[in-house]
């Protein structure tokens, strides 16, 4: 009985995560659960931080320009994703500011770590 329940739970979980992926990737999806949508934004931000960090390190971009470009791109991607791709009413989530700052600091820290590591590994040889 318990194993049956457990396997049912497991299949439910995979189903929900599948449907979240589907919802996140298809435009104009309905988001009755606010937390679900904010979670999607949170994890998207983390992925974006790491990807941009890798790119900035490989190029390499340096200085304030790199930092500012990250902040602008990060905010712009989320803004476009929220208001153009999903056409979500931002007031439902406490305004655009709430959405913009969702997971920003964590993503920024992740970006700085990957940027620094890639930059050190690929371009820091001469100076280290």
């Amino acid at each position, binding site marked *: 009985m318990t194993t049956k329940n457990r396997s049912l739970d497991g299949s439910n979980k995979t189903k929900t995560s599948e449907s979240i992926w589907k919802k996140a990737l298809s435009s104009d999806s309905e988001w009755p659960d*606010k*937390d679900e949508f*904010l979670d999607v934004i*949170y994890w998207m931000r*983390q992925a974006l*931080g790491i990807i941009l960090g890798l790119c*900035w*390190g490989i190029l*390499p*971009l*340096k*200085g*304030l320009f*790199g*930092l500012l470009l990250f902040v602008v791109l990060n905010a712009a991607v989320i803004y476009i994703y929220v208001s153009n791709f999903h056409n979500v009413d931002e007031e439902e989530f406490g305004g655009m500011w709430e959405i913009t700052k969702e997971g920003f*600091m*964590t*993503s920024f*820290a*992740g970006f*700085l*770590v990957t*940027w*620094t*590591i890639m*930059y*050190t*590994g690929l*371009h*820091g*040889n001469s*100076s*280290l």
Partner: protein
Amino acid sequence: MWGDPLLIVFISVCTAFLGEGLTWILVYRTEKYQKLKVEVERQSKKLEKRKEAHGDSLDKQHKKKIEREEERLKNNNRDLSLVKMKSMFAIGFAFTALLSMFNNIFDGRVVAKLPFHPISWIQGLSHRNLPGDDFTDCSFIFLYILCTMSIRQNIQKLLGFAPSRAASQQGGALFATPPAQFK
């Protein structure tokens, strides 16, 4: 060139898991914590809904109800913090010892090269115990703090130990306003 920074990321992943594991043993798995957490989340959501529905109304009865619920939530939040506090102290001591050990190992060593010039009030951290004036040299502590900031929170979220949004929002609002008895 890759060795030191990757080692620091590894250390920070290990310490994050260790910290969460210890907190799970001391706090998260206890019945008292679980009960309080469920209660706080339920109350936070209820309060949020009530505030949304009657936020602007001047009805005294609703206001009184909201205030009473806020008071109850505040008490539960305080109990929750108390339950967490004991283990946080224990973990804090253990981590301070660990950190000072790693600090000694990496003392005076440039572990990475920063691709930007840190602003002056961060330079004390990013250039701690490093020789020379090149502020793009990065010390162990700065990279470790950055790693912890990103890794620990993500691990907490992945494992489901992070506080829910409703609870932290209500908690933040409650801590922002001074308690009634001090008004």
